[in-house]
């Protein structure tokens, strides 16, 4: 039962009601930092210099400069209605060819609006004014003119304008007086005539230091604050250290206090500029300013980084989602060990998630133990992140499904990874016995879901390059590798080596239908090559080498990008072979085969250390340049970025850029890995090609004995979002700022609004319906809210002119309450929380007023979409397990979970695998007879499903009853329930013998006795292994030497580690060691050399006659022995059979009967399907669940439905008593369904109601 305010509770008994309904729209998270919405989605014309004010009528007005458009600029003035629901724009075009600058506005004393702006033309800067109505209409006659002019070569800052407490106007701007930088103020009583400029007293600051970007704040007391940024110091490379200062004045700037610093940046890596401020309360000021940073950094010390180290070896951007995926692996000497993958949100520069060998899901430890995960070799795309290993395995992380799939070209049995790629290594005729290949490059094309893999063999007699693809959508368990390129014996081993081990590159360019393979000549006199294949046909289209094109770099290209017919790449400087003048960047025109070179202008050296390259825009490239830094080349101009040119770019000034580099075209940012083994900084950098990152930041000033300022925090999410203007009204803080995307400047806006009350928009004559339901058969609780709103066009999420379009957008949080007006005071029940299911839909049709029908759902419905791959192994009570599941997988704060202690709580053991969160929660809840609901104020609660509950609400008459219906619509004739489970403990079963493993090998003449350990595959366990000798090792030589012995030894039980028992056996193969025979044979050869030939005549040795070559004969005998020994090689092939050992748990069950119904049905038993409960482990457990199912089955046969005057006490899971309308007997009802309807009639109609329809089990 819901606990109500005492007065509201009493009112529930009354027949006279004044019902209320309140629906608040809220953000799911804090509004700040703002994500923002564009004022104009479609315009590609720059918008900048926003300024905004809330008018005394309640209207919001904003102005900014738009242009150039066809060379011209326009001041765009926008205003809202007094309810601030939609924008209307009015344009004030500047005269032709005038370049618009800063814009500033204020509300004038008469309610009109004063505009001041700068424009430049033909070397003259003009500061102009204009007075308009708040709705953007020129006065009659128009009031506009010039305040001042100066030379565009003169320094100028601002202007800014404000209405003072005495209804006069104050304008501030910055200009120079000789060598001194001043801020000047001018005053006006009518916005037309402006007094002479007077310099603000800034004598406590250095006169020759720049003061710029003035902003005015008029406090409620009438005091004036002048804010500005002040150039504290200038570095040796013209870098600037600026901070925000302000000077207060209590006499409209006639005099002012000394300047006070509001920020305290001390070095050039991060500075502050462009202040703006607004007073939100008597003692509260919001200060916004641009935080200007050299770069953003990230390494293993960053919160959320998974790896123990952070060298960046491979990375890619999911452009659509603006997520960066970084692969970190060792880049120093030794194995290139895989560390981790980090998923980085580029909008906030925070780590969303990380994967390693220790996460869920996890990468195989093979990537740490063996082989190499090379740099610049595995190209991800979209949601796919490949991690390759040179030994022939690729683990592909699908970040959308959060799964890791291994694609193994070979067996890695020790790591439980079997070869699952169906492929045939290419090989040269006659060298079929050499098939091993190295995995060299991977390139994923997300658009086609293909993973292209390049494998190489650099063995001199059997070189090969094999490129093919695997369909990433294939279900497995085996994956087909489709060949695209096969070259055998046509590429030198030096080139192939220069395509593996982190050397060379591969680009698969689907739009150009090309596979580009770059091979480096990495040592000695090795030459490099560039081969270009047709992606669709696989044929070789181009091959560049110095032998055929002497202008091609001798050692090939290190890295390159394909750019509209050009291949632009880096290469190793080569002083010999006539190439001494080839320096910098190489460009190959594939149409003409002309090769050209561009030499960076920022140094005069031979080796510019250019390596990794990324295409910025067409014809523009960002390139790593080793210890020089990062360089940008636009086809004409070279720009260098390093710790010298952009102070603070790299922590510890450790410029070392040899890692991957990317260009994010969405934000115009460069992302580069920096450092390797031994560097002072190993990690990731993001910086702007503009030199610095700018982000609007804020600090809150609070007045006590003086002003104190909170720590600064981002005001907006982006890093190219700056120049914020602030204004405030009773509803919250508005911010307007400039968003820079590539070269385009746009205005974004947002509002910090805690909640918006939608009650005024609720349609009369259309009900607000809130319902909740418990499904006792599944333990699922659900709730939803439906209502309709007026002003549908303003809640239309596609209407960019609306300020309230996001308040009913999909995913928005709603807090809904019913209440009563009692004696003129509004009383409310605790709020129920909902989430809007979909963007509201409406029809625009002439003659129809646009209304929106809104459907919202309980937040727990989202649990149905949260997939759990594997939870931890639980051994705890249901309350603890459910709380952990919710906090771990739904990111719900533990403070928002209040499950209490369940009546039948007991420890259960389980690990959830491949299940949705809602199903996991409901499985547990159902086992214990509970349902989990979103309770009042969003607290997650448990409710007991029972037909024996104590009544929480008693109705002693039918004065509130509109209608009552006994029913049993969900019932059936089931009268027996069976629950099954498996016991906790395992028993072992020995299965029928089967083939467990195979073994084949060769024994040479000197192998002798050898023992082979045979590991049973796939972690299987076998008992009683038996050896079947299909091919014996015995050969003729071995047989002559005494024969062989082959036997199996089942000795795994000798292992101390019992987990190894029956996982392997050993086969002892004993072939004779023929070494003595060999030695004897060999010894005979020299020994017989000294035995001379005898001349025999008539059987006697003589001095003349037939020669008998005794020595030679014995030598021949020795040779024969040796050859026989050498030929005595035996190949064997064994099969090992064994009985698989299977561990099973015994199944038990419990049965419960509804004997009354069985009797009623004439003894017919109608059993339900046996129900298997994974949490039961004994018959007693099953009995409890069976009893619950019986209760549900019987309860469904006795339902009671009624409609009555709404009682805000009631909620699903309550037990109430009502009176039977006819018999007047008491009926007790367990509430499974409640729908509360609030219908406020249209004016003049009388069909309103505030009612509750409920259903439940009666008894």
């Amino acid at each position, binding site marked *: 039962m819901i606990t109500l305010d005492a007065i509201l509770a009493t009112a529930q008994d009354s027949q006279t*009601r004044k019902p209320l309904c309140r629906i608040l729209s809220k953000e799911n998270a804090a509004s700040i930092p703002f994500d923002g919405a564009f004022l104009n989605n479609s315009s590609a014309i720059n918008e900048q210099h926003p300024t905004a004010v809330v008018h005394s009528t309640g209207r919001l007005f904003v102005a900014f400069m738009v242009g150039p458009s066809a060379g011209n600029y326009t001041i765009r003035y926008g205003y809202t209605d007094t309810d601030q629901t939609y924008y209307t724009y009015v344009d004030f075009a500047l005269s032709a060819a005038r370049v618009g600058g800063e814009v500033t506005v204020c509300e004038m004393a008469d309610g009109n609006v004063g505009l001041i702006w700068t424009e430049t033309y033909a070397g003259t800067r003009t500061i102009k004014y204009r007075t308009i109505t708040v709705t953007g209409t020129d006065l009659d006659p128009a009031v506009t003119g010039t305040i001042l002019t100066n030379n565009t070569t003169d320094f100028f800052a601002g202007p800014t304008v404000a209405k003072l407490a005495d209804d006069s106007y104050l304008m501030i701007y910055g200009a120079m007086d000789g060598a001194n930088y001043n801020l000047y103020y001018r005053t006006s009583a009518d916005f037309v005539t402006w007094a002479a400029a007077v310099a603000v007293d800034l004598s406590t600051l250095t006169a020759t230091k720049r003061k710029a970007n003035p902003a005015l704040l008029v406090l409620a007391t009438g005091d004036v604050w002048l804010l500005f940024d002040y150039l504290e110091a200038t570095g040796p490379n013209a870098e600037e250290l600026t901070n925000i200062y302000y000077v207060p004045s209590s006499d409209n700037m006639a005099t002012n206090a000394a300047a006070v610093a509001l920020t305290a940046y001390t070095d050039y890596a991060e500075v502050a500029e462009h202040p703006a401020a607004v007073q939100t309360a008597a003692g509260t000021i919001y200060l916004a300013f641009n935080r200007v940073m050299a770069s953003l950094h990230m390494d293993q010390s960053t919160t959320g980084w998974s790896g123990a180290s952070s060298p960046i070896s491979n990375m890619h951007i999911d452009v659509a989602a603006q997520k960066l995926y970084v692969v970190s692996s060792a880049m120093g000497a030794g194995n290139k060990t895989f560390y981790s993958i980090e998923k980085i949100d580029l909008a906030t520069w925070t780590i969303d998630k990380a994967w390693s060998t220790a996460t869920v899901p996890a990468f195989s430890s093979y990537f740490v133990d063996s082989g190499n995960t090379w740099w610049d070799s595995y190209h991800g795309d979209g949601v796919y992140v490949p991690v390759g290993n040179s030994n022939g395995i690729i683990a592909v992380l699908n970040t959308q499904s959060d799964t890791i799939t291994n694609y193994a070209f070979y067996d890695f049995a020790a790591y439980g990874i079997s070869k699952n790629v169906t492929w045939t290594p290419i090989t040269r005729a006659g060298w079929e016995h050499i098939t091993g290949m190295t995995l060299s490059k991977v390139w994923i094309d997300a658009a086609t879901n293909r993973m292209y893999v390049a494998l190489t063999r650099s063995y001199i007699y059997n070189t090969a390059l094999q490129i093919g693809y695997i369909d990433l959508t294939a279900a497995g368990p085996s994956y087909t590798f489709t060949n695209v390129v096969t070259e055998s014996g046509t590429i030198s081993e030096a080139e192939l080596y220069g395509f593996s081990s982190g050397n060379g590159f591969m680009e698969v360019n689907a739009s150009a239908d090309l596979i580009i393979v770059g091979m480096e000549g990495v040592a000695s006199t090795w030459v490099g090559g560039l081969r270009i294949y047709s992606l669709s046909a696989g044929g070789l289209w181009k091959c560049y080498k110095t032998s055929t094109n002497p202008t091609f770099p001798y050692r090939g290209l290190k890295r390159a990008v394909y750019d509209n017919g050009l291949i632009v790449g880096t290469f190793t400087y080569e002083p010999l072979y006539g190439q001494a003048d080839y320096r910098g960047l190489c460009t190959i025109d594939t149409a003409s085969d002309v090769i050209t070179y561009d030499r960076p202008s920022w140094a005069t050296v031979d080796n510019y250390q250019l390596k990794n390259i990324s295409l910025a825009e067409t014809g523009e490239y960002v390139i790593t340049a080793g210890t020089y830094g990062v360089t940008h080349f636009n086809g004409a101009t070279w720009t260098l970025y390093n710790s010298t040119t952009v102070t603070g770019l790299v922590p510890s000034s450790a410029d070392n850029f040899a890692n991957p580099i990317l260009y994010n075209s969405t934000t115009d940012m460069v992302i580069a890995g920096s450092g390797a083994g031994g560097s002072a900084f190993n990690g990731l950098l993001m910086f702007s090609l503009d030199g610095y990152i700018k982000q609007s930041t804020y600090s809150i000033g609070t007045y006590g004995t003086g002003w104190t300022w909170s720590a600064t925090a981002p005001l907006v999410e982006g890093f190219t979002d700056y120049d914020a203007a602030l204004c405030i009204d009773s509803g919250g803080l508005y911010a307007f700022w400039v968003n820079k995307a590539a070269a385009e400047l746009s205005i974004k806006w947002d509002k910090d609004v805690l909640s918006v009350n939608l009650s005024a928009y609720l349609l*009369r004559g259309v009900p607000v319906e809130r319902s909740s339901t418990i499904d006792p058969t599944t333990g699922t609780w659900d709730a939803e809210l439906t209502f309709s709103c007026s002003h549908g066009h303003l809640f239309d999420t596609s209407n960019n002119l609306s300020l309230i379009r996001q308040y009913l957008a999909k995913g928005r949080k709603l807090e809904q309450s019913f209440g009563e007006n009692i004696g003129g005071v509004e009383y409310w029940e605790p709020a129920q929380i909902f989430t809007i299911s979909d963007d509201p839909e409406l029809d625009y049709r002439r003659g129809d007023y646009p209304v929106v029908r809104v459907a919202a759902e309980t937040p727990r419905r989202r649990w149905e979409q949260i997939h759990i791959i594997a939870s931890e192994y639980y051994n705890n009570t249901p309350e603890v397990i459910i709380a952990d599941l919710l906090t771990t997988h739904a990111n719900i704060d533990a403070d928002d979970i209040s499950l209490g202690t369940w009546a039948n709580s007991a420890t259960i053991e389980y690990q959830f695998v491949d299940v949705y969160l809602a199903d996991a929660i409901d499985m547990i809840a159902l086992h214990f007879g509970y349902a989990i609901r979103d309770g009042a104020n969003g607290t997650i609660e448990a409710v007991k499903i029972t037909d024996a509950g104590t009544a929480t609400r008693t109705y002693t008459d*039918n004065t509130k009853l509109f209608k009552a219906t006994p029913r049993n619509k969900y019932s059936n004739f089931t009268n027996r329930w069976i629950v099954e489970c498996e016991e906790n403990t395992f028993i072992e079963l020995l299965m029928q013998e089967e083939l467990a493993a195979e073994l084949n090998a060769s024994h040479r003449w000197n192998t002798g006795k050898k023992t082979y350990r045979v590991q049973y595959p796939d972690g299987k366990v076998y008992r009683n292994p038996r050896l079947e000798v299909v091919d014996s090792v015995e050969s003729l030589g071995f047989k002559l030497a005494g024969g062989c012995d082959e036997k199996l030894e089942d000795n795994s039980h000798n292992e101390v580690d019992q987990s190894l028992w029956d996982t392997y056996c050993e086969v002892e193969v004993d072939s004779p060691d023929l070494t003595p025979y060999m030695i004897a044979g060999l010894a005979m050869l020299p020994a017989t050399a000294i035995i001379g030939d005898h001349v025999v005549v008539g059987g006697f040795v003589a001095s003349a006659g037939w020669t008998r070559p005794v020595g030679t004969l014995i030598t021949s005998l020795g040779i024969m022995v040796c050859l026989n020994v050498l030929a005595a090689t035996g190949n064997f092939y064994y099969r090992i059979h064994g009985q698989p050992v299977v561990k099973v748990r015994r199944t038990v069950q419990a049965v419960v009967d509804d004997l009354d119904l069985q009797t009623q049905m004439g003894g017919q038993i109608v059993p339900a399907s046996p129900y298997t409960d994974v949490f039961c482990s004994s018959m007693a457990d099953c009995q409890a669940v069976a009893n619950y199912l019986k209760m549900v089955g019987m309860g469904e046969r006795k339902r009671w439905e009624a409609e009555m005057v709404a009682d805000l006490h009631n909620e699903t899971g309550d037990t109430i008593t009502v009176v039977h*309308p006819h018999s007047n007997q008491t009926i007790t009802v367990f509430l499974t369904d409640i729908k509360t309807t609030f219908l406020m009639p249209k004016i003049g109609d009388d*069909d309103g*109601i505030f009612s509750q329809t409920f259903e439940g089990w009666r008894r």
Partner: protein
Amino acid sequence: MNLTDGVTSYDFTLLPHKMTMLRAKKTCAVKQTYTSVAYFSWGTSLVGETIVLSWNAMPAAMWKQLDAFYAADKALVWDPTLTEIPATTKYNVIMTELEGEYLLGGYDEALATSYRGDAIMALLITGVVT
């Protein structure tokens, strides 16, 4: 009596000869229960009501201005003063209807003797000016 759109403020040169009473109406409902009755009330309100003002004859110049408001279709602020005593409350309104017929002076909109006959203006009250 006055209508303004924030830019143009117009004092009626002729008050209507008839006008809907400015009186908040009650929104309520009654529903019989099994043994009693339930009464639901949402109080009284002027917001949402349409006020109809009618003139037997209206000066053409006045019609011209009201027609300009009608055509602009913008939110207006209405001061419903009917006597010398100013109204204590002003209302945010939208002019939903303006009907009439040529009476005297034909199409002429400036001639002092030009009139529109049987003019009716309907104002939807959308809020109370605070």
